[in-house]
């Protein structure tokens, strides 16, 4: 039985398990805690409005038997009142408080200085946003920059549905809440200097430039990498690029933000953590796995995999058809579990912007 809590301040934590009765979330080998969502239940209209107005950015923690199993923050809320849908979101296209515009003059690349709204940065953190507009004058670029800060510096309420006045009867009020894992905060900031270093050093350097996320456990990977940031790169995208390379031996590496806002970069396991046997996911050893505790980035040994007439299992997990790398884990209360193997399609989610734009 999981419990879900909302952190509203340093010493204020509210149990929201009964509000988020349809809670579901996902985690990824590359990213850690990824996305969660629920439709608020049992809230009066006034309470829904209060949530919508106050809770954006608040921390959300899922626990199973007291262990933290998912950790993130409220990323977006959609409130439907009398048939009108309102949106508050921390998506970069909806909100950014530090803006730069890149443009060219007669083919020569130019850029404005960063312009920012420090009040918004203090309240919600810093969200960088870079616009590319091609050939333009400096005045054009600055005007665009000013307009963006004017319009998007705060995560304001926006009406996002067509409005049909007079047709409000029978339309239920509702509040949908989307949460994001702390990994997404890596993409709030951009990096503008090309990084040449070992994979380990490069990741530490990039994460060190972020707010909210700090370097936790970073295992040594001596693979020499070069991350081209001559065009400003979002830090999460750059880290993802490094992690996806693996290492010189062709092994997978896992990287994610799991708890305490700390990034962990680890060599992939060399043995199977789970068994998949007759449709059941078990711990290697045979014990049942509580669904909230299943982690991506682990290997499952598939007992029932037909290996056919292929050559017998090879030297390692990577080329043995009986081993399956779990790239994504989706869990929905009370006990629904979906695991997505390596190479299969990950969920198309509302955080798709994290994959680059």
């Amino acid at each position, binding site marked *: 039985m999981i419990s879900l*809590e909302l952190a509203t301040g*340093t*010493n204020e934590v509210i149990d929201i398990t009964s509000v988020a009765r349809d809670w579901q979330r996902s985690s990824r080998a590359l990213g850690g805690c990824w996305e969660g969502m629920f439709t608020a239940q*049992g*809230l*009066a209209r006034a*309470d829904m409005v209060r949530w919508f107005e106050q809770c954006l950015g608040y921390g959300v923690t899922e626990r199973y*038997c007291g262990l933290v199993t998912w950790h993130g923050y409220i990323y977006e809320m959609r409130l439907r009142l009398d048939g009108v849908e309102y949106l508050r979101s921390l998506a970069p296209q909806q909100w950014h408080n530090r803006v730069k515009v890149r443009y060219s003059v007669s083919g020569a690349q130019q850029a404005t200085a960063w312009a920012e709204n420090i009040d918004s940065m203090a309240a919600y953190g810093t969200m960088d946003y870079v616009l590319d507009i091609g050939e333009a004058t400096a005045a054009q670029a600055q005007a665009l920059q000013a307009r963006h800060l004017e319009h998007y510096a705060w995560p304001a309420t926006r009406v996002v549905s067509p409005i049909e006045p007079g047709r409000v009867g029978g339309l239920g009020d509702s509040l949908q809440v989307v949460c994001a894992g702390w990994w997404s905060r890596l993409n709030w900031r951009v990096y503008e200097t090309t990084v040449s270093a070992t994979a380990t050093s490069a990741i530490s350097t990039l994460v060190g430039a972020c707010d909210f996320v700090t370097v936790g456990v970073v295992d040594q990977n001596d693979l020499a990498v070069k991350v081209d940031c001559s065009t400003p790169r979002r830090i999460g995208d750059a880290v993802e690029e490094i992690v996806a390379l693996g290492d010189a031996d062709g092994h997978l590496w896992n990287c994610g933000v799991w708890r305490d806002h700390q990034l962990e970069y680890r060599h992939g396991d060399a043995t199977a953590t789970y068994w998949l046997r007759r449709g059941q996911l078990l711990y290697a*050893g*045979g014990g049942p796995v509580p669904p909230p505790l299943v982690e991506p980035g682990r290997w499952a040994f598939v007992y029932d995999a037909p290996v056919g007439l292929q050559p017998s299992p090879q030297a390692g997990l990577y080329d043995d058809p009986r081993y399956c790398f779990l790239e994504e884990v989706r869990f929905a209360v009370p006990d629904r579990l979906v695991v997505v193997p390596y190479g299969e399609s990950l969920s198309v989610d509302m955080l798709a912007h994290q994959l680059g734009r």
Partner: protein
Amino acid sequence: MRVLKLVHGSLELNLLAGSSGFTLPADNWAPKVASPAANVAPETVVEEIPVRVRAASADALSSVMQTLHRLQVLTAAWVDATEPEPTWLHCKLDAETGERRAVVRRIEFRYVTSWFNMQSDPNLLLGQLIVERDPYWESLTQSNLVINSGMGTLGGAFAYAYGANPRPMGDAPARLAELNVMGSAEQAYAWVGFRSAQKHGTLADFLSRWELEAGGLSTDAALATDSTASPGGGGNTKVVVSFATQAGWAMRWYGYLFQYRSTAQIPANYGQYLALLRAKVASGTTAEVSMLYGYQTSTITAGPFVRISATDWTLYPVGLVRIPPSGIALSPGTAAELSWEYLALYARRLAGSGAMDIDCLVLIPVDEYAVMLSISQVAGGTSTLRASLPPLGQYVGQYFGWTGSEFVIMGTPAVAWNGPGLPRGDGYLYVASARPNRVSVLSDTLTVGVSFVNRWLSLRGSTA
């Protein structure tokens, strides 16, 4: 039916008293019975109660109906624990002594057309009340389980049994009305597990604290005396992991259940536990631990990676442990089946050149009912962590701090739990706690108080 009424605070509508206007047209109505479900609370129950509403005049009839409508509105508006009381449906059957109540979620009134009200009696209505209620019937009063002070913070145990203390008596898990954990010094974390004699047999045979000195030592591990280490068979002894020959991942400690429990005691250790490791590192050193369990070394389940960075003794949750590890026991279970249950600690050093000290593993039972409380900051001095499950089912946490002259609420701790409620009958309560940042001080003691409300699936019964 002796009692049947809707109550919201001081507003009451007696469905059996003619003076209220409401009566039952026949005496054969009986409440429904919910069906228990695994892992989730049973569904709400929809009662269909035929009623006759009569008053002295049409205006008086309106007044009666307005009372019902006020209850309908109050019920619809009550959504969470920010209001003190929901609407209750009180009920008691003929010749039974125990009146019980259930939380009401929704009330509807439907007119019933029949030969009687077709006679155009302006003072009479025939109808049906649709009352959606919670599946459990509750006692009207809560029972207090008072626990003496002086409980240890590393797996302290308290036995509650019939005769000596109140105990959960209902046929459904009891609702936690109040759990208070007060420390001799400020405590910011508390893990409390309940287990029943009904399910686990001789509870005194369960071991909630594994002193590591009683197990086996592995790579770069040695015993050392330390007055701040918890006392075990070897006195105040800890295990020092020096990382001298291997800083990378290696097994540092292991222990078999048979090293800790006798053959006769072993069966009481079936269950699922949250494992808390008491550990610390030298200044400037960071280590990482992973707890494993299984049968001997062949079938192993790994817990999460846990970083050890505190230089004071600290309680780290290092994962869940199942005994037996497969989760499937022979029937009947045998000591031989469990005696080779194996816990192991693997560790590596991430930074620095110092040692890691490990002291004990505390196992908090989570398979029946467990409640965990945590708060990031405390006021200092003595303090009380409190958790409560109000009737509607949203846990509330409170932290009381001592300001020097009075206790005041200083914050709301996180409340996590596992299980539907306190198990029935005689049982044990196990507790671990820690100061801010999960710092564990051996001399700290606790007073733990529990209040609960008995619950039943069926209305029938004689006990209150």
